[in-house]
């Protein structure tokens, strides 16, 4: 997330009194909430609509009625849908589904693996290529070859389309300040928007199916491509650009001969990030009919078992690692502009030729022989993995119940219920006033205005109560995330070995779809709000740990040396030097934590957490509640923006130079 810098006022004496005011405010809030408990909570029963949601439902209905012969559909939405559908089908037929009249895809499994090996070798090196081949093969060994290929094909299609839009827009935003200014708010918004939110509106226009899923994925990944491309173009050092202009380049020449080649590294990094974003959308896209690995995950969540979900989750991670490593290997091969020697180049050309021949052999075999076309069923380790994970979750549920139940009860009774009674079960006006006042103190007048406006809008939608339920869960999950995240972050920030050991786990944790976590959590904690909270915590901890760890590492060495030389203990060093110095990172981590948690808490609607997420799901299957579902999505958006704004203003405030 970009850190915006705002005008800053930070005066030391105020800081102290601010803490007191904040405390007083909290106290009076709690007291007032006790007195006014249950009054004016604006609670709306799940099957009921508010005037606003009724209206939204009518709008949705009229859009739907237009589908067959409305001009917008005939000439805009439907052609787009058909084009994307065609494109997706094409890429699926290449590797995943039978093509044309044939009973196999264009490439059988051996063909796919050969091509992957060859392409990865061509963009990076032999080690990466071997790893990519092994990882792809492993997906087949998990018994999920076709689903994995579907995921790969969907990701590929979405990435190609995202880049086709994202890179040109990014270049434009890189060249023009005005364009950058125009797209930045959209990019920011896209980053805080939980993915669940835009499924329903997109489905309304593009219906259910791979096209909708692809478009939803693009909505998620295009901003990343735009941002990094623009960043790359802007990051080109000024002096070569200036020198080139002084030599009379046209704008086009400048772009082609200077800016693009010099920003290629960042742009490839953008490609990498776009790929990862698209992949992370795989599971949630299954909710609107995307084929691929999302299907078994959702199946497992709703009907079957931890094991199957886990196996599918592993396949997602394997593909993620494969794509991530091979694209980032392409970046590091760009480390220098200096080419290898002629001898190296020759060796490489021979290598490429051999790899090319192997790939062609693989392709031909996969089209001629059944064993090379269909992934061998004998190689299947999914049962073992599934039952192992099944039994370990079962063991925990059976033997650690005191722990899981205790944890769940402690958080629910000790934190969740009291907070909910303050936020949701007290009058709405009390909550609005208090949140506004607090954001005034924490973030300044602008953040107070933003909060008041957004909260007012939420009240107007009629979904105030459910929004506050979701907000409560988000806050609780974030608090717990920060506790764990800061401890772990400080640890890896101070200890390079711990950092090295934890990093792969953190990376894998970030790529595993949230749904995969949801399944065992459901096993541990049953259908409850705590299940959603626990999932949110597990999902957001990696990013928080990373940011905090980085913040701690970035504390200037001389600061630490100075403190150590005055005889600070380790504890004093952490609490009095490193944490305060990393304050900005802590705030940033909180902000990211909140946004990540929100995205998952919403999914908690699947497991009995109630709130806005549940309404979104309800709306997707019950036509009479679709308006409510859409509005619930809108409220998630408002909530996300509010959280982000307050946090951003706080970050801005705290990055003030201290006197």
């Amino acid at each position, binding site marked *: 997330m970009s850190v915006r810098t705002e005008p800053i006022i930070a005066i030391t004496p105020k800081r102290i009194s601010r803490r007191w005011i904040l405390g007083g405010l909290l106290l009076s809030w709690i007291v007032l909430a006790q007195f006014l408990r249950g009054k004016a909570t604006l609670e709306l029963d799940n099957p009921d609509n508010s005037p606003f949601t009724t209206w939204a439902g009518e709008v949705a209905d009229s859009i739907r009625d237009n589908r067959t012969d409305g001009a917008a559909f005939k000439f805009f939405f439907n052609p787009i849908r058909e084009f994307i559908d065609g494109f997706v089908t094409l890429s699926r037929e290449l590797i995943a589904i039978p093509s044309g009249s044939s009973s196999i895809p264009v490439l059988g499994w051996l063909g796919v693996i050969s091509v992957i090996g060859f392409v990865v070798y061509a963009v990076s090196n032999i080690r990466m290529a071997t790893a990519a081949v092994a990882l792809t093969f492993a997906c087949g060994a998990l018994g999920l070859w076709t689903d994995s290929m579907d995921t790969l094909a969907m990701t590929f299609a979405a990435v190609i389309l995202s880049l086709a839009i994202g890179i040109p827009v990014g270049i434009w935003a890189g060249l023009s300040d005005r364009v950058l200014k125009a797209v930045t708010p959209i990019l920011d918004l896209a980053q805080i928007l939980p993915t669940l939110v835009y499924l329903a509106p997109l489905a309304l226009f593009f219906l259910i199916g791979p096209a909708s899923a692809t478009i939803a994925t693009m909505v998620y990944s295009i901003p990343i491509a735009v941002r990094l491309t623009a960043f790359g173009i802007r990051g080109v050092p000024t002096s070569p650009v200036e020198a080139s202009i002084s030599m009379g380049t046209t704008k086009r020449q400048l772009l082609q*001969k200077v800016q693009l080649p010099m920003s290629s590294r960042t742009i490839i990094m953008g490609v990498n990030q776009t790929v990862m974003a698209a992949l992370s959308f795989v599971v949630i896209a299954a909710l609107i009919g995307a084929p691929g690995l999302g299907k078994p995950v959702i199946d497992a969540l709703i009907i079957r078992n931890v094991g199957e979900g886990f196996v599918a989750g592993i396949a997602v991670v394997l593909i993620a690692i494969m794509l991530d490593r091979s694209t980032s290997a392409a970046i590091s091969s760009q480390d220098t502009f200096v080419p290898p020697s002629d001898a190296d180049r020759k060796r490489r050309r021979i290598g490429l030729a051999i790899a090319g021949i192997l790939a062609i052999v693989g392709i031909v075999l996969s089209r001629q022989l059944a064993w090379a076309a269909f992934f061998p069923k004998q190689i299947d380790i999914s049962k073992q993995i599934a039952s192992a994970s099944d039994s370990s979750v079962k063991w925990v549920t059976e033997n650690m119940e005191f722990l899981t139940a205790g944890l769940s009860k402690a958080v629910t009774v000790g934190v969740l219920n009291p907070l909910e009674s303050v936020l949701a079960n007290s009058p709405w006006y009390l909550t609005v006033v208090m949140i506004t006042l607090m954001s005034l103190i924490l973030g300044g007048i602008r953040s107070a205005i933003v909060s008041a406006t957004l909260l007012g809008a939420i009240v107007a939608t009629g979904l105030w109560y459910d929004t506050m339920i979701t907000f409560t869960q988000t806050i609780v999950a974030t608090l717990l995330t920060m506790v764990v995240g800061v401890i772990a972050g400080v640890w890896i920030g101070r200890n390079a070995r711990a950092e090295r050991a934890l990093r792969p786990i953190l990376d894998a944790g970030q790529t595993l779809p949230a749904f995969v976590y949801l399944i065992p959590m459901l096993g541990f904690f049953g259908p409850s709000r705590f299940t959603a909270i626990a999932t949110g915590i597990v999902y957001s901890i990696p990013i928080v740990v990373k940011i905090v760890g980085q913040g701690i590492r970035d504390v200037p060495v001389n600061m630490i040396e100075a403190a150590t030389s005055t005889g600070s203990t380790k504890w004093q060093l952490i609490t009095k030097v490193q944490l305060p110095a990393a304050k900005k990172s802590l705030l940033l981590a909180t902000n990211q934590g909140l946004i990540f948690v929100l995205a998952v808490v919403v999914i908690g609607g699947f497991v009995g957490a109630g709130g806005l997420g549940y309404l979104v799901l309800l709306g997707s299957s019950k036509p009479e509640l679709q308006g409510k579902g859409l509005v619930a999505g809108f409220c998630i958006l408002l909530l996300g923006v509010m959280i982000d704004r307050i946090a951003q203003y706080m970050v801005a405030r705290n990055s003030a130079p201290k006197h």
Partner: protein
Amino acid sequence: MSEVSSAISVNNLWQVFGPNPEKIVGSADASLPRAELREKTGNTAAVRDVSFDVAPGEVFVVMGLSGSGKSTLVRCLTRLIEPTSGSVVLNGEDIMKVSDARLRELRRTKFSMVFQNFGLLPHRKVIDNIAFALEVNGVSKEKRHARANEVIELVGLQGFAYAYPEQLSGGMQQRVGLARALAVNPDVMFLDEPFSALDPLIRRDMQTEVIRLHEELGKTMVFITHDLSEALKLGDRIAIMRDGAVVQMGTAEELIANPADAYVEDFTRDIPKSHVLTVRTIARPLADTETATGRTIPAETIIRDATAAVLDANGPVAVVANGNVIGYIKSRDILQVVGGGTEA
């Protein structure tokens, strides 16, 4: 100076940042000190009413501390930064008035620039960096590489044509920068602190290199620097800038001999005057008690170089300009300058 005899003629050039910059030019506010101007109008005047002429083949140095506006000035001369008002006449053509296309053409053929941070393209070989301006001008690969090889030879980069910039040292990289600027055989070269990023020893080599190139090719140069000794070493004439305006302009000797104000004097204080001034500046009438030795010395001799001859003479030496004796000096006069005791 008349227009014909100057390579560049800069007249009343202004560059003002901020809101409504045109309004500042010529108004009473324009003369306000920098901070007050910003306070009052929100504008910063980076270049204020600068005028000068550079003769063909002259090396004209603009000197000033950072923030004095010298870098903005040189960018205004090629319109890398658009000036607010004023004119820059190059070979009789006011480049402020030319179209974008013509401006590109001028940049491709008539003038070239060398930058402090080299501004080389890291993804291109040395030869393609040097040939870049020719390339964007549509010169065929064969021709532009032939030309590039000529200048590679000229600046002593033989053997590095197919290297990449990051494989070269800083000094070598700036040689590429110089070669690139020379490749188009420009009428005027602008050098913006070209050697500031280099080590002192390399810097001295490069200065010598520029002098050599200038002697060989006779290019008109506008050279920007913050280093007075560099300015003195290279410049036929020097303009000293402060807060966007030129405070004094003249030959090295004029500046040192007659600093216009305390600012210039402050600058020149640490310069060994004997290295800059000619004997002309210390020539004086013969005192009643003295008798001329009959020896003479040309008026344009640098004091340092005159030392041996004058000390050897054992009495006043006549300073001769255009065949006329304009005054006398003896060893004490020289020792005073070398010792730094006298005001010149």
